[in-house]
């Protein structure tokens, strides 16, 4: 079946009234799940899985996939309004999104997040449809050394996330690597840095650290002022709440960058949307003419990561549907669902089940349109949250953070960790340490260690394996270049200063 007839066939399936309804239910649930910190798509899909036994496989898959990509839309809402990342992939959105909200541009930030998500999400579906099989074969060429190269490239982005001091950013990133290493050794039974606590054997969940450092750190910093702070400004009128034409113009490249990077990283099993959002933010900052303004509320700083984490969804479905390889927790549950319904995801899946594959692809087009229609009109409503007085808003953020963390782990011990990371976030703010590199180190630490150790096992201890494979060598060279660029610029600045002093 060629692409055109496949897509027509797919729309015939997806536009059946029952399937449109399931698509709507999926994206609506996904948006709600995305807004709630800690309550992620894997848990929601797992909870709903038994209910899908009574549904047609196409309808069930359309609904579950709707939850998956709908959550990416919703995740930005609390990041922008409250500095609480609704989802791990929305952590980067906090950096500029929350600053925009503080400047009275919450509506524009929410609007651009929805538009970027729509554009990149649609790009992801088109790419899934066009390039699924060849890209899946390319992803198979990625082995541990290439993954190590990718992780090193991701860590090199610390240069772009650094504030005034690169040393502080590097230290924050290294502490993130250490936190990622807490727990049982992934290759054995050795417990590392657990301080004798059973609760730490399974490691520290990313959500606990991200919510503690970003949300509680922010609340504690705001508590310093004796006077009640002014409510964050919310402009009146729908026109003032939505992005301007200039905003859309400023985000032109961010839409492309987020779409392409998100999809390509999504194809790689294990990389995930969080890494995609970090890398696309780094790239956007690197090529921006106003890079020094990033972190102070730049609209592209919202569009790029939000686009990337939505496009990643299309990419992540490529290895799942064409190779039967799940790249994340959510796709693993989707794989389980497919197996439960009697399918065998793999190279023959598309040929054997055109109705399901093309129905899913077509439903994702419809779902993205539904999400845009659902999210844009809600922007003014969401923005009203900022009108709440501080004495209501801050306890609500703390409560939301606690319930979010508890819903992930079910452990009161993690609430203690949340408080500890909240204090860390506050101290980091006071001492001018950037928070994003800590999260970057935490996200990449585990995968990087696994990739490095597997690579060295493959080469029997020889480090040359990391540079002898072309893809790995190229990515490591890029990482090194990114790390060295600030050093060269500083040396050049010193040289010019010395020359001026001599004259």
């Amino acid at each position, binding site marked *: 079946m060629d692409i055109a007839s496949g897509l027509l066939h797919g729309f015939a399936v997806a536009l059946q009234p029952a399937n449109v309804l399931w698509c709507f239910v999926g994206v609506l649930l996904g948006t709600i799940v995305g807004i709630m910190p800690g309550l992620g798509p894997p848990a929601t899909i797992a909870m709903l899985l038994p209910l899908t036994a009574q549904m047609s496989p196409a309808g069930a898959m359309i609904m579950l996939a709707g939850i998956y990509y709908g959550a990416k839309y919703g995740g930005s809402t609390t990041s922008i309004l409250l500095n609480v990342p609704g989802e791990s992939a929305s952590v980067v959105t906090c950096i500029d999104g929350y600053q925009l909200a503080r400047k009275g541009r919450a509506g524009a930030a929410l609007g651009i997040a929805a538009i970027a998500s729509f554009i990149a999400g649609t790009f992801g579906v088109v790419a899934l449809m066009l390039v699924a099989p060849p890209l899946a074969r390319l992803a198979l060429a990625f082995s541990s050394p290439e993954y190590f190269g990718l992780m090193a490239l991701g860590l090199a982005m610390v240069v772009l996330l650094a504030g005034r001091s690169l040393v502080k950013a590097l230290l924050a990133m290294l502490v993130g690597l250490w936190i990622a290493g807490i727990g049982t050794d992934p290759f054995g039974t050795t417990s590392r840095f657990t301080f004798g606590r059973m609760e730490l054997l399974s490691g520290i969940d990313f959500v606990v650290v991200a919510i503690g450092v970003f949300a509680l750190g922010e609340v504690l910093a705001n508590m310093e002022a004796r006077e009640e702070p002014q409510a964050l400004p919310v402009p009146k009128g729908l026109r003032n709440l939505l992005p301007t034409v200039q905003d859309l113009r400023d985000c032109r490249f961010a839409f492309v960058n987020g779409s392409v990077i998100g999809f390509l990283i999504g194809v790689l099993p294990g990389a995930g949307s969080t890494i995609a959002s970090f890398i696309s933010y780094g790239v956007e900052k690197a090529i921006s003419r106003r890079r020094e303004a990033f972190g102070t509320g730049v609209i592209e700083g919202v569009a790029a990561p939000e686009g990337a984490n939505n496009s990643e969804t299309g990419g992540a479905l490529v290895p799942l549907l064409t190779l039967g390889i799940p790249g994340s927790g959510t796709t693993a549950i989707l794989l389980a669902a497919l197996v439960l319904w009697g399918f065998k995801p793999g190279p023959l899946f598309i040929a054997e089940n055109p109705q399901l594959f093309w129905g899913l692809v077509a439903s994702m087009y419809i779902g993205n349109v539904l999400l845009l229609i659902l999210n844009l009109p809600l922007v003014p409503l969401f923005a009203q949250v900022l009108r709440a007085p501080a004495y209501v808003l801050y306890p609500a953020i703390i409560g939301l953070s606690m319930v979010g963390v508890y819903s992930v782990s079910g452990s009161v011990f993690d609430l203690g960790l949340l408080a500890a990371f909240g204090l860390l976030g506050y101290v980091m703010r006071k001492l001018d340490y950037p928070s994003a590199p800590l999260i970057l180190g935490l996200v990449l630490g585990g995968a990087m260690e696994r990739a490095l*150790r597997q690579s060295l096992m493959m080469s029997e201890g020889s480090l040359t394996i990391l540079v002898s494979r072309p893809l790995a060598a190229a990515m490591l060279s890029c990482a090194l270049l990114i790390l060295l660029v600030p050093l060269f610029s500083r040396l050049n600045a010193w040289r010019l200063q010395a020359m001026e002093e001599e004259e």
Partner: protein
Amino acid sequence: MFRPSPDSWSGLALAALGVYIVLQTRGWEYLSQEGPGPAFFPRWYGLAIVVLGAALAVAGAKSASVNWRGAGRALGTWAVLAGSIAVMKFAGFALGFAVLTYFLVAWMYRRPPLQAALVAGGMVAVFYLIFPLALGVSFP
């Protein structure tokens, strides 16, 4: 002469963390016949933390001081938050969260006790409606 600044202190603290990490890794296998052991990766980032922390401690001696005015209020809030989590362990989320909210509204924002109690009660009720009742997410 070396004059400690906030950056120096934080650099020293991080260098100490790096030393702790490196010392811990001495108890684990670094390299085995199968490949790198559990000490391999942490030892390298531990050493990097020691080097960068020491560099910050030295280079940060001239850094500007930090304005700690208001830190008492922030740390007080944190202490009550930590206390309310301890309360939650025995008395449940609703009571711990209500106490925390009451403290924030009445003490931090100096609102009348009745208003603080109403906000605390209302907040718990709204959370209960959204999470356990509507979403099926249980309270701590």
